[in-house]
């Protein structure tokens, strides 16, 4: 839908189409390079792609799997995108997801109750857990001037180990043959499944969050002030915008959203807490947000793409005898070409 020709002289053409074409070209180049890599290492790339298609976009089961994978990616992408509006970088979606999963699990195991009260309680606990983890990083920044990139990144590792302490220790299922899992959740703590598949009701959460984030960011005074702070924090402060409060709120909401991703993973997919519940999905979320230039609507597309790549990686592991991590090559290549194609001097999406 190019309207460039109809524009009066001196008006810049809309940027979106170019950005979109560039992104598509980047994905195309990455696919070509990955195909070459598969061929060079003695595999039949088109056979592999055919298998991937059948296992993902080409079947109900595959589509459901992409949806399941997309939920945590989309939520952790929002966790990066909301603070990014203010120029804050949250690389800690992964750790916030773990804390959210931990807090939601605590509710499922020790509070319980009927589904209509327990699920909202778990969601609130997940939100609080993620917000607490992100808030800690913000406190460090506020008090000690610790750069939030480093603190959120390193706190990811702490969060994973924190969960391990509980699943290997006090929360381990006594009837679980010594596996590091908690006991399975009661029915009241499980998100209902949809369409008789692995897809669960949690899929509505990221979609609702995207709509809400978009509306708040574009249609409210808050969103306007957030953009002002992202543009120039000092000027905003002098204009009387409570910058510190906005920053704290954005980071807490971002962390909370990532925490809800953790709640959805334990309640909708695993039905218990175990080590490695996410395995890097929070990182994919960060990349999805970054690829979308932190735009909450474009994030849906980039999250879908990364979910597709992630599911494909698991498939190739079984069908084409590739290590699952091989898909990281494709993600790396996509990013490489996207970064290469973005015009130099473009404001770094911070």
């Amino acid at each position: 839908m190019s309207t460039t020709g109809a524009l009066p002289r001196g008006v810049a053409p809309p940027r979106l189409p170019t950005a979109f074409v560039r992104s598509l070209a980047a994905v195309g180049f990455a696919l070509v390079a990955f195909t070459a890599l598969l061929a060079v290492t003695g595999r039949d790339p088109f056979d592999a792609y055919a298998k991937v298609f059948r296992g993902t976009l080409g079947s109900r089961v595959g589509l459901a799997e992409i949806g399941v994978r997309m939920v945590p990616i989309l939520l952790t992408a929002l966790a990066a995108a909301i603070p990014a509006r203010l120029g804050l970088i949250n690389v800690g979606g992964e750790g916030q997801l773990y804390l959210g999963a931990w807090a939601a699990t605590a509710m499922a195991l020790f509070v319980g109750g009927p589904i209509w009260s327990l699920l909202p309680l778990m969601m609130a606990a997940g939100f609080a857990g993620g917000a607490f983890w992100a808030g800690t990083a913000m406190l460090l920044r506020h008090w000690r001037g610790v750069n939030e990139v480093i603190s959120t990144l390193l706190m990811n590792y702490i969060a994973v180990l924190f969960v391990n302490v509980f699943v290997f220790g006090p929360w381990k299922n006594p009837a679980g043959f010594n596996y590091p899992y908690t006991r399975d959740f009661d029915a009241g703590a499980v998100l209902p499944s949809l369409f008789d598949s692995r897809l669960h009701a949690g899929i509505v959460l990221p979609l609702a969050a995207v709509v809400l984030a978009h509306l708040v960011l574009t249609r409210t005074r808050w969103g306007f002030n957030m953009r002002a702070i992202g543009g120039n924090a000092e000027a905003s402060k002098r204009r009387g915008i409570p910058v510190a409060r906005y920053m704290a709120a954005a980071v807490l909401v971002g962390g909370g959203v990532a925490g809800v991703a953790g709640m959805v993973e334990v309640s909708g997919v695993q039905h218990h807490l175990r080590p490695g519940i996410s395995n890097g999905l929070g990182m994919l979320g960060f990349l999805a947000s970054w690829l979308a230039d932190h735009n909450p609507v474009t994030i849906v597309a980039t999250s879908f793409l990364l979910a597709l790549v992630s599911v494909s990686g698991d498939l190739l592991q079984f069908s084409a005898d590739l290590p699952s991590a091989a898909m990281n090559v494709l993600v790396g290549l996509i990013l490489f070409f996207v970064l290469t194609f973005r015009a130099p001097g473009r404001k770094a999406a911070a």
Partner: protein
Amino acid sequence: VNELWLVLGGALMGAVGPGISVLYATYGEVITERSGRINLGTEGCMMMGATFGFITTVQTGHLGLGVLAGALAGGLLALVVAFLAINRGANQLAAGIAVTLFGLGVTSFAGRSYVASSIHGLDPLPLPVLSGIPILGEALFRQDLLTYIAYALEAN
């Protein structure tokens, strides 16, 4: 008391080896950050160095070549970060994460057929006198050449 020393000494000995690998990565990052840049791809560079250093040593039977190949592989990957962040003005955090993922993937590809291989690593070179110090000497001065180079760099 004797047992406590044994435990402490054991912990120290166990810590020096893995610590030296991290120390080398830290030197690399310090050099990068002196230039006002940050390279989040260090993890990927380390994996490239480990994998291609190992593969080269298995193929050539020469440890020195392996060390060189490892350094070269890590450096080449870091060059990608430099290209993206400096030449293309890209966000350096995203560039670093991209490179880490890429390194993770490439090494799992390339290293796959070498999983069962083994190499004879660098031999320890006990320093005269110093290695005779109880516990400390055992832990710090009965190491290989690369460890001593790391000490020398630290003293710098």
